């Protein structure tokens, strides 16, 4: 594999950048693999990478229906954080934060990880108390949490509406200074390129049409590009989880919903970190290009459309303008949507299933991007060792029937309003 550096950049400039090696191959599927990962998104590619790197399993295929980087890994708003209250979520995501910090060096691909901080705004004394509790829980798990009062928030986001007669006056907020953003496409490409260099086959334009199961064991799968045998298959298909579950005769605690995001025209730097305005169903950051990157609610009804409807965008931006009045002067550049695997408690599932050799990775709700490295790392462990790692033992599939929910916000099972 060609190493990327400033020298390779200069060298290739002399040949008009026409002689770069392909970043990954375009192989024809083999008849059999040790492990097949379905889904060439962030989680699937990271799983393949860690299978090869940590477990020396390189006879691996990543099967992708579309093209890699075309799903939620290229549609999210790139926020990376570990500001969770519950131990299982906090430890898992803080483990991921450490992988994020070294990712550009490890993958030899600039993922532009930028720890610029996140603030969750609070609008009442009760919410400040709740944030103090969450911040203390985070600190007990070694995560940096800072409770900010109104004046401290004002120093960071002076352009927000700090008047006292608004519907949700700003009382303060909970910050995680080490949180940040990264370039999402680069994460997919970086993992894909390294996995490919270690022998993983990345097979695009290949749709899974069925599974072969014999005596409770998975033996292979059928695809639009032929049958493939494998004793271990991992599902990393986010919003398509329910579609594949149907082919497996499984019913999961997952609903599929559409989440939209939008960006404004680019402007000069105005917002340093990420700000979430939960009361207004709105969050925002500014990209390196200067666009204001914004999102908020789900469209509110089960959807596989990958494109949203206007009322939700209007609702989200109404909240946005209430917090940052200057947004009303900006033009929106584009909006888009992705389909989310909304779990019934808001936390993910990384587990084995009742079918031997079939592994499940789903339920990422709004926050799959930040978990790409930790999910890939733990899912690779779960597949390679055929047992869950302590970091993902809380993300079990049977926690719903057993009653051990990881309901970080305690919002119940109406996934479309959580």
């Amino acid at each position: 594999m060609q190493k990327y550096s400033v020298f390779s950049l200069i060298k290739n400039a002399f040949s008009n950048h026409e002689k770069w090696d392909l970043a990954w191959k375009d192989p024809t599927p083999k008849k059999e693999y040790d492990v097949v990962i379905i889904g060439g998104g962030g989680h699937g590619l990271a799983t393949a990478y860690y299978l090869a790197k940590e477990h020396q399993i390189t006879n691996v295929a990543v099967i992708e229906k579309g093209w890699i980087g075309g799903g939620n890994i290229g549609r999210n708003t790139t926020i990376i954080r570990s500001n969770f209250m519950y131990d299982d979520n906090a430890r898992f995501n803080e483990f991921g934060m450490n992988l994020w910090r070294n990712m550009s060096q490890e993958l030899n691909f600039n993922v532009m990880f930028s720890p610029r901080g996140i603030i969750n705004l609070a609008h009442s004394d009760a919410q400040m108390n709740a944030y103090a509790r969450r911040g203390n829980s985070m600190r007990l798990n070694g995560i940096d949490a800072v409770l900010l009062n109104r004046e401290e928030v004002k120093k960071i986001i002076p352009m927000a509406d700090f008047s006292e007669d608004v519907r949700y006056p700003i009382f303060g907020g909970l910050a995680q200074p080490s949180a940040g953003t990264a370039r999402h496409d680069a994460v997919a490409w970086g993992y894909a390129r390294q996995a490919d260099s270690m022998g993983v086959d990345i097979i695009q334009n290949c749709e899974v049409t069925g599974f072969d199961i014999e005596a409770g064991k998975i033996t292979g799968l059928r695809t639009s590009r032929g049958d493939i045998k494998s004793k271990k298959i991992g599902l990393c298909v986010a919003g398509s989880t329910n579609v594949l579950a149907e082919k497996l005769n499984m019913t999961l605690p997952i609903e599929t919903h559409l989440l939209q995001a939008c960006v404004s025209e680019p402007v000069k730097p105005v917002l340093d970190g990420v700000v979430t305005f939960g009361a207004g169903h709105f969050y925002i950051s500014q990209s390196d290009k200067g666009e204001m990157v914004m999102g908020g609610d789900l469209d509110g009804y089960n959807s596989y459309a990958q494109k949203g409807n206007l009322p939700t965008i209007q609702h989200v931006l109404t909240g946005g303008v209430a917090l940052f009045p200057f947004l009303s002067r900006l033009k929106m550049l584009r909006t888009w949507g992705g389909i989310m695997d909304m779990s019934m408690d808001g936390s993910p599932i990384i587990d084995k299933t009742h079918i031997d050799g079939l592994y499940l990775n789903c339920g990422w709700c709004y926050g799959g991007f930040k978990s790409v490295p930790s999910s890939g790392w733990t899912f690779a462990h779960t597949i390679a060792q055929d047992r869950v790692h302590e970091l993902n033992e809380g993300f079990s599939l049977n926690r719903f029937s057993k009653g051990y929910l990881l309901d970080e916000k305690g919002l119940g099972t109406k996934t479309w309003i959580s």
Partner: protein
Amino acid sequence: MLNIKCPYCGDRSQKEFAYGGDGTITRPKLNQEISDEAWDNFVYLRKSPRGKHIELWHHIAGCRQWFKVERDTTTHEIFRTFKPEEEF
């Protein structure tokens, strides 16, 4: 934006309605022993199909009645709407 025909009021904008989720789920009968599996099915497990989906909607800014909608989850085409007591 969806245009939903409330079976009581007629065609209205999506903005008047609230979503109520999968309309095929039935609560286990009261005053009976309920197995963990039946309760799990009722509370957590959902098919969430790609394609035709029967779902509950609430005409919250109108007549406030609940009713069912058969809608395609990919195209958002609404095939029909009906009162809860009408069978599909």
